[in-house]
C-alpha cells in the first residue's frame, strides 16, 4: 500500500477534529452495512457482511463431538479467522497469519467469554446432545475478502448473522446403550434447531485519532490512530468484553468514556444489524428455488 502524504494525513486528522470525516461521515457513524446470509450452502450457517469496502464472510459448521469432561453439559465453539490475500497483497504466503491470530483471539474473548465459558454470547448448553457423551462442536470460520479497516467489528457482525442463519439438525440418540460406550446417533434431515442469537454481542471498536475517537475507521484512518479499544456490548447494553489493542497508553477515565460511547453507539447499531439480518434471512429463504435461467 502506498503511504499517505503529509497533506492527506492532515486532512484526515483535521476532518476528525471537526466531526466531518473524509468520506462525509460523523465520528460516530458507521459506513453503509450490507448483509447477505446463506452464501455458503455447504455450511450449516453463513453470512457475508460488508462495511463499505471491508468485506468478510463467516461460516458455521457443526460437527458431532465429545464434550469436555470438565464441562459435560456444554458443547464447544471455536473461532478461526483467515485473511485472504485477495484483501491485500501483504497477506500472501501466510503474511496475514499474525493479524488472523489476533482477530481470532479477540473474537473468542468478546463473543465466547473466558475459559470458563462465563459471559458467552452463545448458550453452550443448547449444543448438548447427550450429557457427557455427545455434543455439537461449532466451528466458526471467518474470512476477510476485502479489507478497508474495522475488520473486528465486521467479523463480529458476520458471525452474529451466520449464527442466526445456522440450522443444526435434530439428533436422535440410540437407546439401550450401556453407560460406558459411545451411543449411536441418527441425524434428522428435516428438522433443524435454530439459534437464539439475541444475546450475541456486537463489537464496537473506537479508534483514537488525535484527541477524538471514531467508530468504523477505514484503513486510512486506522493508519493515523494512536490507540484503539474494542468493546463488545449485548442487546441489554451490558459490556461483555473489552480489548485494548496496541498504541499509546490511555487514561483510565478516557477508557471509561470510550466504553460509555461504545454503549451509546451499540444502541443504534444492534437494532440496525438485527433488521439487516432479518431482511437477509428473508431474502435467502425466498432465494431458494428461485427462477434462474438454466
Amino acid at each position, binding site marked *: 500500500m502506498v503511504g499517505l502524504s503529509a497533506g492527506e494525513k492532515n486532512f484526515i486528522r483535521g476532518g476528525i477534529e471537526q466531526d466531518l470525516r473524509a468520506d462525509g461521515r460523523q465520528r460516530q457513524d458507521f459506513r453503509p452495512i450490507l448483509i447477505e446470509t446463506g452464501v455458503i*450452502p455447504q*455450511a450449516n450457517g453463513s453470512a457475508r457482511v460488508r462495511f463499505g469496502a471491508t468485506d468478510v464472510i463467516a461460516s458455521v459448521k457443526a460437527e458431532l463431538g465429545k464434550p469436555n469432561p470438565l464441562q459435560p453439559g456444554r458443547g464447544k465453539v471455536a473461532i478461526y479467522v483467515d485473511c485472504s490475500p485477495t484483501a491485500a497483497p501483504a497477506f500472501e504466503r501466510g503474511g496475514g497469519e499474525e493479524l488472523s491470530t489476533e482477530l481470532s483471539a479477540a473474537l473468542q474473548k468478546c463473543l465466547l467469554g473466558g475459559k470458563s465459558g462465563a459471559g458467552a454470547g452463545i448458550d453452550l448448553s443448547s449444543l448438548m446432545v447427550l450429557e457427557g457423551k455427545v455434543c455439537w462442536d461449532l466451528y466458526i470460520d471467518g474470512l476477510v475478502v476485502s479489507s478497508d479497516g474495522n475488520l473486528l467489528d465486521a467479523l463480529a457482525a458476520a458471525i452474529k448473522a451466520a449464527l442466526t442463519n445456522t440450522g443444526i*439438525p435434530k439428533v436422535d440418540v440410540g437407546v*439401550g446403550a450401556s453407560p460406558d460406550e459411545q451411543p*449411536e446417533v441418527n*441425524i434428522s434431515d*428435516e*428438522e433443524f434447531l435454530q439459534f437464539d442469537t439475541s444475546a450475541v454481542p456486537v463489537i464496537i471498536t473506537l479508534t483514537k485519532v488525535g484527541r477524538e475517537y471514531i467508530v468504523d475507521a477505514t484503513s486510512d484512518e486506522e493508519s493515523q490512530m494512536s490507540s484503539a479499544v474494542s468493546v463488545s456490548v449485548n442487546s441489554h447494553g451490558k459490556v461483555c468484553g473489552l480489548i485494548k489493542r496496541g498504541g499509546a497508553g490511555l487514561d483510565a477515565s478516557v477508557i471509561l468514556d470510550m466504553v460509555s460511547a461504545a454503549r451509546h453507539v451499540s444502541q443504534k447499531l444492534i437494532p440496525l444489524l438485527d433488521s439487516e439480518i432479518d431482511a437477509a434471512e428473508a431474502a435467502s429463504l425466498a432465494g431458494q*428455488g428461485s427462477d434462474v435461467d438454466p
Partner: protein
Amino acid sequence: MLQSKSFMKMTRHGRAVKVVREHYLRDDIYCGVQYCKVCDTKDARLGSSESTILVVDTNVILHQIDLLENPAMDDVVVLDVVMEEVKNKNLSVYNRLKALCTSSQRKFFIFYNEYHKDTYVKQMVGETSNDRNDRAIRVATQWYQNHLAGSSRVLLITNDRENKRKAIEEGLSAETVESYVKSLGQPGLLDLVVVSSSEDVNVMEVEETRPSKRKAIYSEHKPMSEITHGLHRGIYHQGKLRVNRYNPFEAYVGSESIGDEIIIYGRSNMNRAFDGDIVAVELLPQDQWHDVKKLSIEDEGKDEEEGVHLVPGSADDAPRGTVPSAVPSETMNSTSCRPSGKVIGIIKRNWQSYCGSLEPMSMPAGDGGVAYALFISKDRRIPKIRIQTRQLGNLLNKRIIVAVDSWDCLSRYPSGHYVRTIGNIGDKKTEDEVILIENDINSRPFSMQVLACLPPLPWNLSPEDLMNPNRVDLRHVRVFSVDPPGCTDIDDALHCTSLSNGNFEVGVHIADVTNFVHPETPLDKEASQRGTSVYLVDRRIDMLPKPLTEDICSLRSDVERLAFSVIWEITPQAEITSTRYTKSVIKSCAALSYVEAQARMDDSRLMDPLTTDLRNLNSLAKIMRQRRIERGALTLASAEVKFQIDTETHDPLDIGIYQIREANQMIEEFMLAANISVAEKILKHFPLCSLLRRHPSPTKDMLEPLLRITASIGLDLDVSSSKALADSLDHAVGEDPYFNKLIRILATRCMTQAVYFCSGDLSPQEFHHYGLAAPLYTHFTSPIRRYADVIVHRLLAAALGISKLPPVFLDRNQLTSVSDNLNYRHRNAQMASRASVELNTVIYFRKRPTDTEARIVKIRANGFIVFVPKFGIEGPVYLVKRGEKSDWLVDEANQRVTKAGSGVNYRVLQAVKIHMEVVEHQPNRPKLELTLI
C-alpha cells in the same frame, strides 16, 4: 430453473457432513405419448388412440414385475422417482424394468418427473420420504391427466390404500392391481398377480376354520433398528446364507465378525431365510452347538434323501459340511467346535423365480375355482412354496416357474405366484429347458440387432485382408486341426515345420473372432452376457451366432480362414527359443479327429508329411508335459462321461467314460503353452487391466476330507505344495489297479475351480495357477466358445499395436464385473452340463437296470456313498431302510461302518457290487437308486 437439495450425511468416521447438490428443473421433458400435440414425439412410445395410460407405483413394480412382463400390460409410464426406488430396493427387478423400458416391443416410457419443472415436489417439513415419493407419483399422474386433457384415460395403479384414497380425493383415477387386471378380462393373467400379504392372511383364515389353532411356526424377525444395533455391538453377525446343496436343512453363514462360518441347522433356525439372503444371525449357546453327525440322521430330514449325482469336478460341486471337523470322536459327543446359530432377521432377500413342479395332489371338488398347491423346486435348497391358482388341472404334471412373494411367521411355507409353464414333466425338451433356466442360461435365438452385426454370407477372404500389413499370409504352411469327432466349431489349429538349424517352428492358430466381433456392438454385448457356449449332452447353446461359430470363424479344412497365431521356435529338447504373435491367414489341410490323429501316429507305415508333423509335435508335447509335471502340475483325474445318442429319439444309447488319448494330451499341451505365452505378453503390456485365470492353492481345510480318508488306510499325503502333492499322488499305489485314479478323483474334488480375474485387482503372487503350476495363465485358444478368450484376443492385439484397447479395459470396475460375470457363466455352464448328463443317465438306466462294481468314498451313519467308475456317478447306498433305527456304528478314525454285534463292516475305498435301477416312488418323478448286492 434451479433447485438446491441439501441433506445431512454421516461419514464413515461418524462425522455429520452437510451435502449440497444442485438440482436442475427443465421444461424440455416430454410425455412420450405418440399422439401428443404439444410434446416432441420423436422418442414417444406410449399409446395408440383411446388407450389407457398406466402410472405404476414402486411396490407394484417390485412385486408385480412378472405381471408387467406379460405383453398384456402396456402403455405404462415409469416415473423417475419409481425407477430410483426400485433400484435401491431390488437390483434384479430394476434390471428387468430397464429391459422393459428399452425394449422396442413394449410400450414402457420413463418420465423424468424429478427433473420436470411442473412435477418436481420438495419434501415438506415432517413428511417422510415415502410420503413425499407417493405425493410425487400423484403429482406426476395429475400432470399426465391435465396434459393429455381427456384424450386418454390416465390410471394410477397402486396397492397402497392410503395413496389410492388420496389420489381419488385429488381427482385422479386409481385402481389396485387386482381390480385392473380383472377389468382386462383375461383370467390367466390373474395367476400372475401377487396377492398382498395382508389379504393372504385373510384367505388362510378362511381356509383354516379354527383360527385359534394357527400359531407362529417361526419366530418373529427382529426390527431393522435392533438388528443394526446388535450388529454394531457384536451380538448379531451378518453374512450371506448359503444352504447346503445336498442337505437343505443345513446352511452356513460366512461371518466376517467372528471370522468363521456359522452353521444353521434346521428350518426353524433358518427362520425363513433363503439361499443367498443376507441375514443377521445370533449364536446359540455353546451347549446347543450340535454334533454334525447326529444331525444328518435326525431333524427334519425325514422326507429328504440324497440322490445319485455326477462325480463332483471340484470342491465347488462337492457336498460339504457333512464331514465333521477333525475332532477325535470321543470329544465329539460333548461339544463341537463349530459355532451354530439362528437367523433373527433378514437384511436383504435374494428371492428369485424358481423352476419345479407342483406336489401331486388330487383335484379339488369345485372345478375352476381358486386352489392352493405346494410347489417343489428342482433346486433342493429352496423350500416348498405355496401358490394359488385357477388352473390347477393345467399345472399338475407340468414344469412351471414360480416366484416367491412373502413368508410370514405363521405359515410353514412361503407364498408365491405362478409365472409360466415350461412343459410336461419328464419330457426331454422340458427338462433341458429346466436345466437352462435353473442355471440362468440364455438360450433364446439371437436378436435381429445381433445378427445384423454379422458379415454378409457367404464370407470369403477379401484382398484387403491379405493387404493388411498386420496380417501374415500363412496359407502355404501345412496347418491342421485335431478335435473331437463331429466338432463343427474348430477354434484351434497347429503347424510344425522343421527348421534348417534342427529346431522346429510350431504355430498355434486360433480363430480370429475379434476380426468379426467388434467391441460395444450388440453382437459383442450379447456374447459378453452369454460368456460361454454351453454344452448339453445333445445340444449346444452357442455364445456366438451359428454363421460365425460353424463357418466364418471355424478353422475348417481346405478353406482360407483368418487366425491369430502364436508361433514359437522350439528346440528338439522342447525349449522355446523365440515367440512371435501375429494375425494371419491360414488354410488348414486337414481337420482330424483325436482318433484319426492317434491312428496316424501309431501306424508306423505312414510316413507322409502330415503324420511326421504330428509325431514331431507329439514328441515335443511329451517333453513339455513331463517338464510341467516335474514343476508340480497336478494330473488330476475326472471321470468325464460320454453318451452315444440316438439320432432320432435323442435318447442315450450307450454310456461310458471318455477316453483320453495321447493326441488329446498333445493338443492340450500346446494350447496350455499358447495360453501361457499370451498371458505373459498381455501382462507385460497391461499390468493393470489384463484378464488372467488363476487357481488358488487349496487350503488345509479343503484337503481335510482327502487326508482323513488316506490317513484311515495308512497313506500319507504331503500337501505342503502342489509339487509335493503331485509327488505323493504319484506314489499312492495300492494293490487295486484303480486305487491311484480313485485317490486322484478324490483329490480333484478338494480343489476349487480356477477363476478369471483382472490383473489390477490382485497382487502378482496371487496370479498363480495351482493346478498347472504356472505363475501366469489365461484363456486364448477358444474365442468361439468363451468370451474370456475374446477379451484376451483384444488385449493381445492392442499389445501388438494392431488395434486400440477398447474402453472397457480402462474402467477397472467394469472389467472386474465382466470377469465376475464370466466366472458366473462359466460355472453355470458346467452345472448345466452336469445336470444334462445326470438327466441322460437317468433316461439311460430307465430301460437298463445294471449290476456293476463301485467304490465306497464316504461313510455315513446309515450307509455309505459309492462312486461308480464305469458311469462316473456317485450316490448313496443305504444299509438301513428309511425310518428304521440304524444298528450300524461309524468308526470315524478308520472310516469304517460296522454292524453292531456282527463282524460285517464296510470301509472307505472298498470295492462293492451294486445294482442300479430307476424307480418311480412318485408318478413322473423317476430316480436312480443304488442297492447293495
